[in-house]
Every structure is written in C-alpha cells, then in structure tokens.
C-alpha cells in the first residue's frame, strides 16, 4: 500500500510538472500580452509595467523564478487585477465553486444511487425503464441545454427561483441540480450494473436464507460491493463537475473560479491562468489518488498495481 501511494505520488508530481511547463510556455508563445488590450499604454509605460512584473527578463529566467516562488506556495500577482495576488483571487472564488461542486455531487450521488438500486432490485419493471430513460436523458441532454431550459421554465415563467445570482440558499438549487443531473445518470447506470452483479451472488442468497430482511440485505450486504463501479467513476465525475461548472457559472452568473479561469485566458492574465490550471490539476490528481485508495479499501480483490 505504501509503495503504491508513493509511486502514484511521484507519477502525479511528474504530471504536474508537465502541466506547469506546458502551460507556462504555451501562454508565452501566444500573440498578445496582458497589457496589449489597454489602449492608452505608451511604450515607456509598457516597459515599466513589464519591468515591474519581471516580463522583460529572459524567458527561462521567468520560468525558474516562477517555479521558485511556486515552491514557496506563491502564485504571483495578477496582471489584470492591480494589487491582488492570484492566491487571494483563488481564496475568494474557490469556496463558491467548491460549494456548488459539492452540492452537485451530493445530488448526483443521492439520485443516481437511489435510482440505480431501485432499477436493479425491480429489474425489468416500469421502475427499471423509468430509471434507464432518465439515464439516457442525462447522457444526451447537455447541461447547457438543461440549464437555460430550467431557468426559462422554473425561474422566468413560474418565478420560483432567481434566474441568476448567488445570494441566498434558494440560489443554490437550480445550479446544483443542473450540474449534478449530468452525473446522476451515469451513477445510476453504474449502480444498477454493480448491484445486479452482486445480487446474483451466493452470499446474498445466504443472507436471504438466514432470514435477513430485503432492506437489510441491500443496505448492509449488497451496496458495499455494488457501489464499486460508482467509486471508480468518482474521479472522472469530479473532474467533469469542475470543468462543467464553467458553463453553470456562466449561465447563472455565479462568481466562481471557473468563470475566472475562462476570463483570465481571454485577458492573457498569465499568472492567473497558470494558477487556476495548477489548482485544477492538483485537485483532479489528488481526487484520483483518493478514489484509488478508497476503491482498494472497499474491495480487497482490486490488486493495487505499481
């Protein structure tokens, strides 16, 4: 186990290094800089600005400087928001996106696991068909279609919710449902498949023979094994929810890190782009590692490979 974790950590560090290097050089070879959009910048001021941010130094030097300050946990100053550091901006915006993502994931898991389990237990009945139709909808109707349509129906016509904004708890409902919907569908499919396989096994028959109630059989015996496919899906799901929130934050005007990332790329805000890319990479890799460990803990049959 220890060897597995260390080798995975090393692999993640290598991947992270690749991400940082690729992003750093990619954004530097792009035409246009962070200050080209502002009109009234004379060549002198531009030179001063570049000197202030160290952009006049050779590229390799900037790269080393960036890596060094990154080692101290400093993501540098933002080029577009004067007097603000990237660390501050992330500290402001990440909690919003994290809350949205956590709510969406909770919605996806509760709905997906419930539907999937019901579909497996009542296999080939109308419940199963409703669940699989729902699953197909979740896979085929993208969030940027569900989102505007729900806003049109529930917010604009019925007036139950605000169409956009992020103030009170009711403002959390629509964004979380829309973002979670896309992942509830695969979760329910995976749960159904996993549960069907487990429910057919001998130890379930034994439990039944011992007179355990059906509810107890499902919750105490079957779910742990039946949810394994769901656990391995959690890594990609969380990564998808993170990037999916770009769209949701745009639709609902939510001040989260996803919108900040897209805007920073448009603004050529080098440090903010790098900072958010590193943040996403670290989050995704860390979650994948956690998922692998949890998976091993849930099922001793999954052999941990190096």
């Amino acid at each position, binding site marked *: 186990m220890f060897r597995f974790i260390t080798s995975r950590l090393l*692999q*993640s560090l*290598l*991947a992270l290094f*690749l*991400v940082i290097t*690729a*992003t750093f050089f*990619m*954004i530097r070879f*792009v035409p246009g800089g962070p200050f080209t959009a502002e009109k009234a910048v004379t060549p002198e001021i531009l030179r001063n600005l570049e000197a202030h941010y160290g952009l006049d130094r050779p590229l390799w030097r900037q790269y080393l400087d960036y890596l060094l300050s990154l080692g101290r946990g400093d993501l540098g100053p933002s080029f577009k928001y004067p007097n603000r550091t990237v660390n501050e901006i992330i500290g402001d915006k990440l909690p919003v996106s994290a809350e949205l993502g956590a709510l969406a994931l909770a919605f996806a898991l509760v709905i997906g696991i419930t539907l999937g389990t019901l579909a497996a237990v009542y296999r080939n009945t109308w419940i199963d068909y409703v669940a699989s139709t729902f699953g*197909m909808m979740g*896979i*085929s*109707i*993208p969030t*940027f*279609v569900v*989102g*505007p*349509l729900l*806003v*049109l129906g529930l917010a*604009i016509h019925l007036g139950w919710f605000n169409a956009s904004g992020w103030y009170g708890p009711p403002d959390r409902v629509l964004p979380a449902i829309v973002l979670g919907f896309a992942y509830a569908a695969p979760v329910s499919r995976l749960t159904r*498949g996993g549960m069907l396989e487990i429910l057919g096994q001998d130890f379930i028959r034994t439990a039944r023979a011992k007179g355990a109630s059906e509810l107890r059989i499902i919750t105490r015996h079957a779910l742990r094994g039946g949810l394994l496919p769901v656990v391995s899906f959690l890594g990609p799901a969380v*990564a998808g929810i*993170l*990037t999916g929130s*770009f*769209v949701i934050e*745009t*639709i609902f005007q939510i001040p989260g890190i996803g919108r900040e*990332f*897209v805007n920073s*790329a*448009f603004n050529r805000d080098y440090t903010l*782009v790098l900072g958010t*890319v590193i943040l*996403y*990479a670290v989050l*995704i*890799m860390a979650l*994948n590692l956690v998922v692998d460990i949890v998976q091993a803990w849930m099922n001793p049959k999954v052999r941990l490979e190096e």
Partner: protein
Amino acid sequence: MSVPATATLPAPEALEQGSSLGHDAWLRLRKNQLAVFGLVCLAVVAVLCLVGPWLLPYGYEEQKLELGASPPGAMHWLGTDTLGRDLLVRLLYGGRISLGVGLAATFVALTIGVVYGAVAGFFGGKLDAVLMRIVDIMYSLPFPIFVILLMVFFGKNIILLFVAIGAVEWLTMARIVRSQVMAVKRMEFIEAARALGFGKRRIIFRHILPNILGPIIVYTTLTIPAVMLLEAFLSFLGLGVQPPMSSWGVLIKDGAEKMEEFSWLLVFPAALFSLTLFSLNFLGDGLRDALDVRSSKD
C-alpha cells in the same frame, strides 16, 4: 444490393451458407427498436443538413434587420433571430458543422487510438509499459482545460478545433484496442500467420484489427456524441465556431441569451441537438448489445 430484392429472398436461416458477424449483428440490431429509431433519426437529420440549405431560399448570414426576431410562421418555418436570419437555415448549416466536427474529430481519435493501442498490445513488454504509462499520465491531466486554453489562444480555427478534440478523445480508444489486441494475438490463426512468415504490420492490420472491429465500432459510435458535446461546450463558452457561421452550440448559446423574449431561438436548437445525441447514444447502445461486446463499457 437493392432493397426490394432482399424482401423476396428466403429467410436467412434457410440459406445454407454461414452468416457473418456483420449479418448477425444487423439482425440483432434490427430487433432493437430504440437503435433503429436512432439510426433513422440520424439519417433524416444528416440528409436534411446536407440537402436542406440548398432547398431553402435563404443564406445562413442573410440578414433582414427590419424583420428582427419573428416567431415561427409561414415564411420562416422556425422563425428568425434578432438579426432577421432564418433559424431553420442556420440550424441546418450548424448541423453540418456539428456533425462534421463530430465525425472528423472522432476520426482523428480513432486513428491515433487504434494505432497506439495496437502497437502497445501487439509488442507488449517494455514498449507496452512505457506507452500505457504515458496514457495513464495523460489521463490525469485536466484536458478540457487545455482545450479551452488552446481555443482561446489559437482559436477561430475549425481545423485546430477538431484536432484538439481528437487529441483528447483517443486515450480510451487506445486502452480498449490494446486489451483486445492482447486477447487476440495469442490465438492460433495469428500463430499460423506468423508461421507463414508475414510481417508484423501485415499481421496487425490484416489479421488482428479485422477481428476486433466490434469494440472499435461500438466505441466510435459512442465517441461521436462525446465529441459533439465538447464542441458545443466550447462554442457555448464562445470559443468554438465563430460568427457568422453557426453550429448547434453557438445557436444554443445565442438562444439562451435571448430566451426571455424569443424562446424559440433556444427551444429548436436545443431539441435538435438533444435528439441527435439521443439517437447516437441509442445506436451505440444497440450496437454494443448486437455485437455483444463486454469490455467496451470502460
């Protein structure tokens, strides 16, 4: 070849010759109503997008500013957008782009994935370990984020769009092909081909690949909707196809901005896009059942 002629043939079981994998699969697929529905829908949508724009008397960028946004009516069947452009024509042109990007990017992913996976699986050993470790590392990278950066920095270029998308989507194909190749390469007919002195390239492409076409077809069918989603996602963020050209993602984005007053601008593109994705997914699922592929799920 011709359709009516087959109707007069005796039932396939009555024929003496054995039936091929493809024929068997087709018979099973035909029984799956949802898959047939998907296939028919796709054919209709594709033909409409290809032929429709020529039959309609409007261009995709032809503006009638004095008309503005008008609801569906006799002149413009699906209405017009705020610049007075015919929505139906823009929808069909957008379909060409969306379907075209879907097919082209899937083809890129298919080519890279199949060759990469086949090489890794066939040669095995150290080469396989290195190649698959690279895939593992790439899997853990936040790729949609890179695609967004690419499109922001080098965007407004549709070739780049599908190369970028194709480069993201090949990883799973490589894994599937690799595992299939590893299973097939130990079989006797491969040994026979080797004994006959055939070259490695010939064995891979002429003997192994035709035998794993099933999983490749299934996964390809399921990649197309994923690619179309990614394209629409980028267009929705304003990073994909640039105006005045349209794609379904662009139309949905425009419609979402104006839905409070002109709801048809959102509803029609959203419906057509979802219908197409439904059809592709139903067809992919049906093919999976028909070809009886177990490993294509992951």
